[in-house]
């Protein structure tokens, strides 16, 4: 069957009342989480992941995928009306969205964000349908040495694209890898680094670790910022503006396409997410504009660039997740956990063995992209207003409660809750010291891939004069080696380019 036939099969599976309700529920929850400043899409997916344990694989993924797509869009409401990005993927939306709202064009900004999100989201998913099966076919040829280099490549990218300090990004990634080595060694069988704590013999649970590292630091930040005032701007609905704005946005095909391509490519790169894509797309929009001086004063192109790119990241991130088992974005790291929890192994075989689940999931996310438009336009404005009235002192204990429920329900173990809390506090301290949670979690996921690749590769390489030669004698390995070196040198190249151009590109 071709991709389109599988997609038709996916849509047929989707049109069941229960699945459709879950998709709608995912969209509603995602919009609320996205619009709540302090709750990111990553945190939302992490919080609701353990609750989906009781659903079927496709239902669970449809719910989480819809939540993810809608949360990225929902973040634009608070970015436009409150000048507070709902998620890190909407930072760029504040630059022009909020000035538009201040000029009394809040409703227009919301409409632009909505249509751009729809365009970017659909673009990303269509690209996923084109590229993922191709990459999956290539990935079937991978052996342990290729997986070793793939993991290393993932680690170099997540670190070099990490916000702020590159060196700390690398160290964070290695801390994550080290956490993944706790427990019984997958090949050698020794119990490692448990410090005689029996709970650690099975290793650090991925889901408690994800919930802890992503949610607890956010809650603590919420507690610390509880006194910050928010400036709400009203967005009055204007009749006839919806269609007029739709026509205007669709006329800006080059802006939409450029932002969507940037978002998709950044989504494909392991570790980089919407937080990077929206800023890159915004700076490219400024660079290529005939009137760069107008950006920041409330121009539609600014909102189009950020909102199309951050939603295109969703489809981009699914490509390496579903084909190689390497998460494209931090949210994909949690979806990786969702796949494992459902007994599915992310990777090329997912397409051949469980194509029904993959394509139902894709169909669900595509449908959710359409559904989030009327739901967002109907309730988004009101929701943003209500959200400003929720005190953070109320939100914090509720989120702590949800993190506890979430980490407990994975294996009904109170030890997982302790793991979640300890890693959460560690994550907060590390964040304060400049180590982001993204590289740490991705190191935690890539660690077992790299270890299995290394150890199994060394065992296979015993027939060669030197076992390690197996890692440099296969052509696909060289592709990853070259890519890894390129991404290792990327921050240096970027720095030199900035110096040469007199800092203009900064």
């Amino acid at each position, binding site marked *: 069957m071709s991709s389109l036939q599988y997609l038709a099969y996916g849509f047929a599976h989707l049109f069941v009342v229960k699945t459709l309700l879950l998709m709608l529920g995912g969209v509603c929850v995602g919009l609320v989480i996205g619009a709540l400043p302090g709750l990111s899409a990553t945190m939302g997916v992490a919080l609701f992941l353990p609750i989906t344990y009781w659903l079927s694989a496709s239902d669970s993924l449809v719910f989480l995928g819809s939540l993810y797509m809608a949360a990225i869009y929902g973040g634009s409401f608070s970015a436009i009306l409150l000048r507070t990005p709902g998620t890190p993927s909407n930072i760029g939306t504040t630059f022009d969205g909020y000035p538009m709202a201040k000029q009394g064009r809040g409703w227009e900004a919301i409409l632009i964000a909505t249509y751009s999100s729809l365009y970017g989201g659909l673009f990303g998913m269509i690209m996923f349908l084109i590229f993922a099966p191709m990459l999956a076919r290539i990935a079937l040829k991978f052996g342990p040495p290729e997986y070793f280099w793939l993991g290393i490549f993932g680690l170099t990218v997540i670190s070099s694209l990490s916000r702020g300090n590159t*060196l700390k990004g690398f*160290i964070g990634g*290695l801390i994550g890898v*080290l956490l993944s*080595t706790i427990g019984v*060694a997958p090949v050698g069988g020794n119990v*490692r680094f448990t410090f005689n704590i029996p709970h650690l013999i099975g290793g650090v649970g991925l889901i408690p670790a994800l919930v802890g590292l992503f949610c607890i630091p956010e809650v603590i930040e919420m507690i610390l910022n509880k006194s910050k005032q928010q400036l709400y701007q009203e967005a009055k609905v204007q009749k006839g503006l919806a269609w007029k704005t739709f026509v205007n946005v669709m006329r800006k095909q080059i802006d939409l396409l450029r932002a969507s391509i940037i978002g998709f490519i950044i989504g494909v790169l392991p570790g980089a997410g919407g937080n990077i894509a929206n800023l890159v797309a915004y700076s490219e929009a400024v660079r290529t504009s005939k009137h760069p001086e107008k950006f920041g004063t409330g121009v539609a192109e600014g909102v189009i660039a950020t909102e199309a790119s951050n939603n295109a990241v969703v489809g981009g991130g699914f490509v390496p997740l579903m084909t190689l088992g390497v998460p494209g974005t931090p949210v994909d790291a949690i979806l990786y956990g969702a796949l494992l929890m459902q007994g599915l192994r992310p990777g090329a075989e997912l397409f051949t063995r469980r194509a029904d689940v993959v394509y139902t999931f894709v169909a669900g996310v595509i449908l959710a992209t359409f559904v989030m438009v009327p739901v967002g336009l109907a309730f988004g404005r009101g929701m943003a207003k209500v959200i400003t009235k929720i005190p953070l002192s*109320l939100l914090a204990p*509720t989120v702590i409660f949800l993190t506890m429920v979430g980490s407990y329900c994975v294996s009904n173990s109170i030890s997982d809750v302790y793991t979640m809390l300890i890693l959460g506090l560690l994550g907060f301290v590390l964040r304060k010291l400049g180590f982001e949670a993204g590289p740490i979690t991705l190191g935690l996921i890539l660690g077992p891939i790299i270890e299995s690749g290394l150890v199994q590769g060394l065992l296979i390489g015993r027939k060669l004069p030197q076992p390690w030669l197996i890692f440099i004698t296969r052509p696909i390995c060289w592709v990853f080696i070259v890519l890894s070196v390129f991404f290792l040198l990327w921050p240096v190249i970027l720095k030199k380019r900035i110096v040469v151009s007199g800092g203009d590109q900064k």
Partner: protein
Amino acid sequence: MIADMVVSIFLLIFSLVLLNQTRQYNYLSAVFPQFVLVFLMILTVILLVRAIVLFKKRRTSESKFIATKDLFYVLLVAALSFLWIYVMDWILGFLLGSILFGIVIFAILAGKSLKASHFLLFSFSYVAIVFIFWYALGKLLHVPLPRGLFF
């Protein structure tokens, strides 16, 4: 800078301890952690050297890690959360433990500005959320939630 130096030294010592532990493992169990630890130590030394150089040049101003008042709140909430889990597991159970500690944390965070009407409104909403989860997980999905002494 000083924070980076402290982190580097801590990571170096910790890496050495772990590297020493790997000597007890067989080759297949030890090769990967050793590979990671050596890389980590190299990067940590670079971080340490950079922090020392920056400290000598004093190019960046040292920002405070966290304000004392904020640190008090963070430590209090962290301590209460650990106590919450412990008491929930052994004494109060999921329902009572979650309700009690959630309300206590809210009251602490809201501070002196807390009005009685807000307190009642929050308590009602929060109890409703906890009750929904308790019923859905414990009664409908038969998840063995912590029972404590009373349930």
